[in-house]
C-alpha cells in the first residue's frame, strides 16, 4: 500500500514561523555595527511588536483621556479600555476575578507593595521571611528592609550546584515564625524553573502565604495562578513584549482585602475629610494617582499578541532554542554552562575560560549580538556559585536557530582573542 511508504513519524513542524514573526518587530529589521541585530537579551527586556507600538500610538491619538472620573464619553471609553486590560490579565494568568489584578509599575513595585502592606502588617520581631539563593535583588532587598524595620529575619533556602532549589532544605527552613515565602518562578540568572506549585503546597501546610516573582516566567510559561495556588504573583509588562512602566500584582482577593493601602492619594479613596478618609475596594485601593493608562493599553495589546502566537508554541520554540544553544556553546572549548537545572526556561548563563563576561559582551557586540554580562542583579547567587559574573544569552519568540549559531560563532571568536591563555 502506498500509505506504508509514509514514515510513521513525520518531522514535526517548527512551533513558530519565526521569519514571519520577526517582521512584527521593527527593531529587528535594523542593524548593529553594520550587522543585523541578534537580540539575545530578552530577559532584561523584550522588544516590542508593531501592534503594541501602534496600539499605544493610536490610543494617544484617538482614545486618550484620564480614567475613572470623567463624565464625558471619551473618558468613559478610556476607562473601559483600561479595565478591559484588567480582564485580559485575569485571563492571561487565570485569576478567579479581575479585581485580583492590581496595576503597578513593574515586578519591583509589586513586591514592594506586598512588603509595605502585608509584610509590614504581619511581621513581628523574630518573625521570618523566606527567600531563595536564586532571587533577583528586587525579591531580596524589599524583604530585607521590612525585616530591618520590624525586627524580623530574612532566611534563605539554598540551591544545589546545578542551580536547582534544595527542596528539602526549603521545607526545613519553613518554621513556626515564617510569615511569608517569596520565590522566583524562573531564575533570571540561570533560567531554573522552580517547582512553585509544590513549594506553595508545602508553605500552605504551615499556613504561610507565598509571593511568586514571575517576571522571568510570564514571557515563557503559561501561568495559571489558580493551579499554582500562590497568594501573590508579580510580573512586568516590558518583559512580555509590552511597554515599560507597567506591571501586575495578582493577589488573592481575601488577602488584598485585608491589606492596608500602599500609596495614598487620589483615585484610591471613597471619601476624604480632614478627620477621616475611607478607601475604595480592591484593586483600586492600591492604584493611587493617575496610572500609566497608555502603558496598560500597550500591555493589553502585548497580551493579545502573545495569545495569538500562543504561549505553548512560544515555550516549545524557546525550549528548542535553549537546547540548541546549550549544546552549541558547551561544544566550544573553554566554555562552561552555568546552571544545569532539570527544568530551565529562556535563559542560558555561561562563562568563557580566560575571558571576563564584559569582554565577551564587547566582542559579541562587535558581531551585532546583544547579550548581558554581569551579576544579573543576583549578587548572592553569584557569590554562591563562586563567580564574579556570567555571560547570559536569553531568548524571545523572535529568536532563530541561525542566531544561536551566530552566538556560538561569536563565542569562538572570543576564544580566538583570549584563547591562547596559558592556564
Amino acid at each position: 500500500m502506498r500509505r506504508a511508504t509514509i514514515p510513521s513519524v513525520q518531522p514535526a513542524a517548527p512551533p513558530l514561523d519565526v521569519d514571519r514573526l520577526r517582521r512584527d518587530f521593527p527593531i529587528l529589521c535594523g542593524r548593529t555595527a553594520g550587522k543585523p541585530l541578534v537580540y539575545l537579551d530578552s530577559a532584561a527586556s523584550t522588544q516590542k511588536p508593531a501592534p503594541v507600538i501602534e496600539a499605544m500610538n493610536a490610543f494617544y491619538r484617538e482614545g486618550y483621556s484620564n480614567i475613572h472620573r470623567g463624565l464625558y464619553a471619551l473618558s468613559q471609553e478610556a476607562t473601559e479600555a483600561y479595565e478591559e486590560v484588567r480582564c485580559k490579565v485575569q485571563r492571561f494568568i487565570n485569576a478567579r476575578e479581575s479585581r485580583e489584578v492590581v496595576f503597578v509599575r513593574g515586578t519591583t513595585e509589586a513586591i514592594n507593595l506586598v512588603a509595605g502592606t502585608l509584610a509590614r502588617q504581619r511581621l513581628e520581631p523574630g518573625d521570618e521571611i523566606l527567600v531563595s539563593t536564586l532571587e533577583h535583588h528586587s525579591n531580596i532587598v524589599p524583604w530585607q528592609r521590612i525585616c530591618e524595620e520590624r525586627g524580623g529575619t530574612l532566611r534563605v533556602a539554598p540551591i544545589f550546584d546545578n542551580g536547582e532549589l534544595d527542596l528539602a532544605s526549603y521545607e526545613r527552613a519553613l518554621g513556626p515564625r515564617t510569615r511569608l515565602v517569596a520565590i522566583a518562578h524562573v531564575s533570571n540568572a540561570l533560567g531554573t524553573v522552580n517547582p512553585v506549585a509544590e513549594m506553595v503546597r508545602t508553605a500552605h501546610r504551615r499556613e504561610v502565604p507565598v509571593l511568586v516573582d514571575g517576571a522571568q516566567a510570564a514571557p515563557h510559561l503559561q501561568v495559571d495562578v489558580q493551579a499554582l495556588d500562590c497568594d501573590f504573583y508579580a510580573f512586568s509588562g516590558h518583559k512580555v513584549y509590552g511597554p515599560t512602566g507597567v506591571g501586575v500584582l495578582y493577589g488573592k482577593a481575601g488577602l488584598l482585602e485585608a491589606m492596608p493601602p500602599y500609596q495614598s492619594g487620589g483615585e484610591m479613596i471613597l471619601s476624604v475629610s480632614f478627620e477621616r478618609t475611607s478607601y475604595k475596594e480592591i484593586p483600586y485601593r492600591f492604584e493611587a494617582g493617575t496610572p500609566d493608562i497608555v502603558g496598560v493599553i500597550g500591555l493589553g495589546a502585548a497580551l493579545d499578541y502573545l495569545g495569538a502566537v500562543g504561549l505553548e508554541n512560544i515555550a516549545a520554540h524557546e525550549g528548542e532554542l535553549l537546547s540548541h544553544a546549550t549544546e552549541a556553546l558547551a561544544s566550544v572549548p573553554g566554555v562552561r554552562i552555568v546552571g544545569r537545572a532539570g527544568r530551565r526556561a529562556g535563559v542560558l548563563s555561561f562563562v568563557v575560560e580566560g575571558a571576563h563576561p564584559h569582554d565577551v559582551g564587547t566582542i559579541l557586540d562587535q558581531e551585532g549580538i546583544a547579550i548581558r554580562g554581569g551579576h544579573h542583579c543576583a549578587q548572592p547567587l553569584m557569590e554562591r556559585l563562586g563567580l564574579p559574573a556570567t555571560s547570559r544569552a536569553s531568548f524571545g519568540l523572535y529568536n532563530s536557530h541561525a542566531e544561536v549559531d551566530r552566538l556560538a560563532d561569536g563565542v569562538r571568536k572570543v576564544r580566538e582573542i583570549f584563547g591562547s591563555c596559558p592556564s
Partner: protein
Amino acid sequence: MSELMELYQEVILDHTRKPRNFGSLDSATHRAEGHNPLCGDQVSVSLRLEGDVVRDIRFQGKGCAIATASASMMTEFLKGRRAGLLPEAFRRFQDLVTGKTIEPPEDLGKLMAFAGVSAFPVRVKCATLAWHTVKAALENSQQPVTTE
C-alpha cells in the same frame, strides 16, 4: 586594525593574563578599594610612598581584561614616579580613553595602548577604575596616619 583588535592589543592581553605587581603590600602607606557597582569589578590598590615617590605599588581584584590590564600597567607606570604627577597623568589617561586627546601625550608611554578604549564608551569605566582608586588612596594621605 579593527576596533576590536585595537582594544585587545597584545600588550593589554599580556597584562590581563599575567598581571604585574599583583597582590597586597604589607608595608603600604596608602590603600583604597574601588569597585564598579554596575558590573561588579573590584580592585584594591596599596602603595608605599617614600617622600613623594611611589616606592612600591600593588593591586588586587577581579575584573575584565581592560580593568585588570589597566590596573597592572598603571602600577608599572606609577612605580618610581612622583605621586604629585598622578593628577596630571590621570587626566591625560582619561583624555586618552575618552578620545579627547588630539595630540597623543607621549609621556604616557605604554599606556597609549588604551587608546582603543575610546571606541567603546561603556568600557571607559573599566579602564579608569584603578586610577580612581589610586587617586582615592593618595587623597587619604591628607590624614597623616601612614605617611612615615
